[in-house]
């Protein structure tokens, strides 16, 4: 993927009521582009089938691996 330009970073900022200019703009672009690129690069098979599980810890009783039923 191509990097977001500084102008595009400013537009994204405007969408969330942030006016981003130098001296921050260049560094904000480095951070945003690096993070987006790193996330985009991950192509993990099965991701699309992943359940939308909340962030909390699964109960101890459900620690068995996926698909394995408790006896």
């Amino acid at each position, binding site marked *: 993927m191509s990097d977001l330009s500084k102008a595009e970073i400013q537009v994204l900022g405007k969408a969330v009521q942030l006016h981003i200019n130098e001296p921050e703009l260049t560094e904000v672009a480095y951070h945003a582009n690096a993070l987006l690129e790193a*996330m985009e690069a991950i192509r993990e098979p099965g991701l699309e089938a992943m359940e939308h599980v909340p*962030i909390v810890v699964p109960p101890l009783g459900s620690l068995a691996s*996926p698909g394995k039923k408790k006896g």
Partner: protein
Amino acid sequence: MAASDIHYLSAGELGRRIHKKEISPSEAVKAYLDRTEKLQPTYHAYITVNKEEAMEQAKVLDKEAAAGKFRGPLHGVPVAIKDPVGVKGWPSTGGSRIFKDNVVNQDSTIARKLKEAGAVIIAKANMTEMGIAETTEFPWGTPKNPWNHDRSTGSSSAGSGAATAAFMCAASLGGDTGGSIRIPASYCGLVGLRPSFGRVSRHGVMTVTWSMDTIGPMTRTVEDTALMTQAIAGYDPNDRYTYDAPVPDYTASFSRGIKGLRVGVIKELIEAEQVDKEVAAAVKTAVKKLHDLGAKVEEVSLPMVLHSGPIHWVICYSEFGTTYRDIIRTRARELTHMVRIAVLAGSLLPAQSYYKALLLREMLRRQVLAAFDRFDVLVSPTMPTAAMERAKSVHTESKDMVSSWVTGPVRMTAPFSHANTPALSVPCGMTSERLPIGLQIVGKPLDEETVLRAGHAYEQATDWHTLRPPGV
């Protein structure tokens, strides 16, 4: 024992001597406050020190001890806690000048529990601004690593690390989102435990990344970490994410040893290119020691951990970008440079990136939890290197610079934040530059007991925990 040597005792040993009335709580607290007064200008370990309240509390505990009443093994033991943990009447700044006047009007659950356990809170520890770990700017002074003042203490719980390693408190609490307890513990030669998410209440604690923030101990021995965890763990009706699960007697399990314990050595984290040769060698020696103590050791592959850096930072940036949304709009100029950049960038990440990171976190979590079908604990280096040199610049010079830390050292610790498992760092060696190395021991969710038992068995079979930083 001379008053000038009290600070060298572990928290557990100090508590035992107080119980035997060989040392009074007031003597213990005064010894640490005197030492703090002497060393704080060098180490910048604390943001707030409250001598008067600490001595008042110590005198109450003196009276109780004289009457034969002891609240527990921490009765009269002086401790420091990371700044975001609220203490009634004390400021909670979260490491930021923006919150310098944020005096809280009630104890956090953690502070209340520590006081009920007899611990005396003498100070609140320094940290990176807002707990954002990748910054190197400390508005309240840069904490120094007692092992080498030019090296990083690790972050974000840098003050807790410096204070505990410099014997400015008997034990401390840090905060761990992606490794902020374990990293400074590893760099400063300490024991540090990230408890399971939901094991320790966060009621009254300032937020950084709400879906992964935890509070846990940083101490000089595994026993001390067990005692501190014992004091602060448990269900809290004020924090609906805490688990209503029994809290075992952690030190009681130590006598069981680790014979038969199934230990998985995480292949991807010990063989990674970025792991320093001395670190890898120290961890392999530690693994052999676990084997010699009776553990059954095997290698385990967890390839998803290789993605944990990007997963971690996208979640963190997105969540702290939201946490600090008002501040970045109204008081951005009062933030330090790196925090301002990080919060601005976090505010821009699209929902789809955050959501992908959440799904990947779940995939990673499942892989880690599945490993516990075969193993009781997993082990790895805590960090790929010993303490690094402190960064000279606060500026980001290129996208590549960000990419390198996005995929960098946090991949060692963050996977277990994502899996919501307890993870302990325990000293396991020294580099040729006399810098500490940490061994990470990870357990099943809510199974701090086994993690601590394994750490204790290893610690007692080695002498790394007895080493002191030069000149301290």
